[in-house]
């Protein structure tokens, strides 16, 4: 039973100087599970994601990816990162590379796949996000929604164990949000394991297996969306949901 746990975070702490951003976060993610983390800005959601793939170094706590202890000093972190996809709020496509090369670069340089194989795989993933015809466009020639879908393709092409999304729609023009959420719903149906920081209530309601509400460096409440949205136990959750549902 415990074998299908892909990610386990235990008592994670992180501080910037005097500011303690993560005050002991613990969470578990099973294979194929979709967890949405919600909370006001500045409560440490992005920091949590960045600590999981060690883009930031946590001060204390343990992280396991499958059976590998990520926070072990001896772990080759580049080998961990290639197994954890990350989709960024501001896409962060490489502007000097075409959409295709953006997706290919991890395949050729990190996974060391032969060029032709990498190309096939990259095109397949661009096709999946509906952008095969934009393969030779540069990021500056794409719309925000298209850039975000390329970013998703770039993460997926590495066949990661899980993909983390850091507010994937909050930098987008409202009319472009839909296309990105549709792509994410499709991935959810295919059984991709996802850890998502997002304020998209609609998406969270129908795609998430679990919602986590985060406040001041802690997870204050978690549960299936049906419960969290209809009958939150915690006073903070109640007020928080009222505010975002009112928008």
């Amino acid at each position, binding site marked *: 039973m415990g074998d299908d746990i892909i990610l386990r975070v235990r008592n994670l702490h992180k501080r910037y100087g005097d500011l303690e951003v993560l005050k002991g976060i613990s969470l578990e993610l099973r294979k194929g599970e979709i967890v949405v983390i919600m909370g006001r800005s500045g409560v440490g959601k992005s920091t949590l994601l960045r600590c999981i793939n060690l883009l930031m170094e946590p001060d204390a706590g343990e992280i396991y990816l499958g059976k590998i202890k990520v926070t072990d000093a001896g772990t080759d972190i580049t080998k961990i*990162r290639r197994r954890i996809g*990350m989709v960024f709020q501001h896409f962060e496509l*490489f502007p*000097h590379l075409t959409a295709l090369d953006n997706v290919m670069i*991890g395949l050729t*340089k990190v996974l060391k796949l032969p060029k032709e194989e990498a190309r096939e795989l990259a095109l397949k993933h661009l096709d999946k996000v509906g952008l095969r015809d934009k393969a030779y*466009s540069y990021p500056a020639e794409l719309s925000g929604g298209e850039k975000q879908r390329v970013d998703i393709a770039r993460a997926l092409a590495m066949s990661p164990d899980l993909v983390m999304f850091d507010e994937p729609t909050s930098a987008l023009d409202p009319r472009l949000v839909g296309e990105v959420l549709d792509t994410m719903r499709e991935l959810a149906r295919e059984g991709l394991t996802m850890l998502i920081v997002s304020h998209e209530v609609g998406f969270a309601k129908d795609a998430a297996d679990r919602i986590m509400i985060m406040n001041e460096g802690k997870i204050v409440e978690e549960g299936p969306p049906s419960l969290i949205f209809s009958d939150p136990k915690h006073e903070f959750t109640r007020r928080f949901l009222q505010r975002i549902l009112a928008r």
Partner: protein
Amino acid sequence: MEIIETILNTLYFFYDCLPILAEGLKITLISSVSSFALGLLIGSAVALLRVAKIKFLHYLLTAYVEVIRGTPLLVQLLFIFYGIPIVFGIKMPSLIVGIVAIGICTGAYQSEMIRSGIQSIPEGQIEASQALGMTKWQTMQFIVLPQALRMVIPTLINEFIMVTKDTSQLMVIAIPELTRRGSWIVYRTFKPFQVFGLVGAMYFVIAYVASRLSKYIENKYRIRGLIR
């Protein structure tokens, strides 16, 4: 009629000067290109090492850049020219000494240009690259440098133009480059106005060609659709 005669005479005079100046132009070009290339080598290495933030090296390299920036090239040139035989007990050909001195000087400036290019790449780009599993060096090689170098090409070519003009200072260590040869002719003919006019025009042509080349390279490597 008189004016036409003056012009013809000047042209004849220029024609007579050409073989001597052409030889000087060759030395000017050789020393500009080689000291710029040496500077590019030094500059890239220093920029990368400074960005890598290795404690001890960091202070040393910062000192190098600051000393070079804070002293005149002419002084550096004379210091190295007279210093090498005293410190190392060897006498090297002046041209080599000159190229090395200017190379060390422009290397400091180029390192700052390249470093500012590297540091202008947003943190998010580095995160995205590392999140894919790339190592620090791969990130530098495939993500940071290709973007940074595009950005600094115009500044580097401008530096090449500066270096070309700076090589005129090599005349003080008796290198027969363009300006020094110009002076020779002036001593013999007493026509400084015409001679230095012609010498100046020759520098200008180099600078002009370089700046056109800069535009060409900028266009060639411009990222489609990107306005910076």
